[in-house]
């Protein structure tokens, strides 16, 4: 009797547990591996999930946050995720090492990496960096700056020309003026300088007037950043190209949503990360939008000139040992996704040609 009742209870419990699975059964489960922890840099994907765009395409997308020891290329190559976010340089390098990564959509149309200096230092161009202590990030992130230096006749390997300082991923060295210039992403480290609160509570200590921003895009040595890639073998399996197009469709719509509903998108991100500052993420969302919009060729489309520029710098600095093969990028999937989206949603703007960023108020400590 006891056992029978127990069995019944277990049975009912299992049935209850499985019930939600039944309704979700027709959705295809796929995973997206982010390049870093949850932050507004990836808001478009969180928006696509929250707005139900993925579900509309028949996908159940699990978004996997990244971290310091997570290489999206390795995760995707090992089958731990179907889609990954990476920067073009490291994606090409991993492809050369045999991960079979293929870029299928270029989300960021321009690079967010800058070199910043203090306005009172008078360092206003890359040429001015001669003889200074220059902060760079390692792990392949230093090459856009190196290319800019070389273009201005400065040899980054020659200590007589310039002192290269390997800067950690915070701005302490720059704030303490231990280095003359620092690498900074517009959407993250630059805000950290502006959000700085002095020991005695003074705020703001620094405004945009206090820093010079050296733009690698304008110098023509920027490398492409956030893109979506997949594994070549996975893509070759039947039905997966269609699956990829569906994923891109929903993701593109997510990014359009974040352009038009910034506040919502910040909220989606904050829901995933209770330790993130509201002010900082709002700033980041706005800056990320600037990197995406306007998308002259349409959201997610790759500019082949910028691709060539990225590949050239990568080859020049031996990030890759030979020019990337034709198969490294696929333009057709993003094009198909955009085309079908335009047909399905004629009223939605997928180019954002009249996009105007907003002014985000800097908050103390990014709170």
């Amino acid at each position, binding site marked *: 009797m006891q056992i029978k009742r127990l069995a019944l209870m277990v049975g009912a419990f299992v049935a209850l547990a499985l019930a939600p699975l039944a309704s979700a059964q027709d959705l295809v489960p796929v995973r997206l*591996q*982010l390049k870093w*922890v*949850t932050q507004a840099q990836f808001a478009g994907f969180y928006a696509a999930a929250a707005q139900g765009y993925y579900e509309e395409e028949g996908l159940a997308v699990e978004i*996997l*946050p*990244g*971290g*310091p*020891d*997570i*290489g999206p290329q*390795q*995760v995707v190559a*090992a*089958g*731990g*995720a179907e889609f990954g976010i990476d920067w073009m340089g490291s994606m090409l390098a991993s492809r050369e090492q045999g991960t079979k990564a293929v870029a299928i959509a270029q989300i960021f149309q321009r690079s967010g990496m800058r070199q910043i200096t203090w306005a009172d230092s008078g360092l206003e161009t890359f040429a001015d960096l001669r003889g200074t202590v220059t902060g760079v990030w390692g792990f392949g992130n230093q090459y856009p700056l190196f290319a800019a230096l070389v273009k201005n006749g400065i040899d980054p390997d020659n200590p007589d020309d310039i002192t290269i300082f390997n800067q950690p*991923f*915070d*701005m*302490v060295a720059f*704030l*303490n003026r231990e280095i003359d210039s620092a690498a900074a992403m517009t959407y993250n480290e630059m805000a*950290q300088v502006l*959000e*700085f*609160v002095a*020991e005695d509570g003074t705020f703001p200590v620094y405004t945009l007037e206090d820093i010079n921003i050296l733009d690698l895009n304008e110098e023509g040595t920027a490398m492409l950043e956030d893109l979506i890639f997949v594994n070549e073998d996975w893509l070759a399996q039947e039905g997966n190209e269609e699956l990829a197009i569906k994923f891109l469709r929903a993701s593109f719509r997510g990014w359009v949503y974040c352009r038009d509903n910034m506040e919502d998108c910040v909220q989606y991100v*904050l829901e*995933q*990360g*209770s*330790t*993130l*500052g*509201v*002010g*900082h993420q709002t700033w980041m969302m706005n800056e990320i939008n600037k990197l995406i919009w306007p998308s002259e060729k349409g959201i997610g489309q790759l500019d082949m000139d910028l691709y060539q520029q990225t590949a050239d710098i990568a080859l020049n600095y031996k990030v890759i040992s030979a020019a990337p093969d034709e198969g490294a990028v696929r333009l057709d999937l993003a094009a198909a996704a955009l085309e079908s989206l335009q047909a399905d949603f004629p009223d939605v703007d997928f180019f954002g040609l009249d996009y105007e960023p907003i002014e985000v108020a800097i*908050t103390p*400590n*990014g*709170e």
Partner: protein
Amino acid sequence: MTQARSSEKLQTAFIVVLLLLAVVGLWEGAKAFSRAVNYALDLPWGGTLDLRNFNNQQLPHLGDIARSFVEPAQRNGPPLGLILLNASLFTLSSAVIGFVLGGVLGFLLAIIFAHSRLLQRGLLPYVVASQTIPILAIAPMVVVWMRQINLTGLAVPIIAAYLTFFPVTVYALRGLTSVSPLQLELMRSYAATRWQILFKLRIPNALPQIFTALKISATASVVGTIIGELPSGIQSGLGGAILNFNQYYVQGPPRLWATIVAASLVGMLFFGVVALAERLIVRWNRPE
């Protein structure tokens, strides 16, 4: 007897408070001194000592660290203390699973080694070698493997177990094999089987050592879990909190310190629970 006991407790409490005060005095004293000399101390034999490590950016006031627990970590959000409590519970639950996994594995290995000299000599070197590989190198691989076989949730406990099984194996093996020959002979003269000797003699003999190992493992499992959370991309635990507060360190140094305090409290709590279990279980042979 009871009076002696309570006075002993009083002494312990006194020493704990004294040590705490000493730490606070050193911490705040170093800060106050550095501030007074403007963070640069001229040395009598020339040169200056850079004391900027003691400024509020690098080493926040203890009061500020304490206050950060009650202040919200996010505008209009819950206080940091509550967030850290949730993160601690999350991390602790993975640590407990890892601790159990590692403890069982370590104990089984010890039993096998105790009964077979051949296996002990053949395998023990590999067990030792396993601990010379940095956990940081192994963690990302474990995550990738587990994800591939759809057991993502087990990745972090396995990483924690990797740190915890070793002390258990070493200490338990020692305890299992260090039975007195006299007792062993007595058991054999009664024709006791291997199992009987194991359960009636070896394991009771090894218990004090096993608990010593478990106390080491308890704290190690918390460390292993936090390390494991990083390559797993887990945001809900202490690992995720440390990562974020580290990245945004400039924007609130006390928060990272508060997270460190929370992590050490979790380790101490786990240690305390194991120590309590030891008091209840090992009533004999307690080294005191």
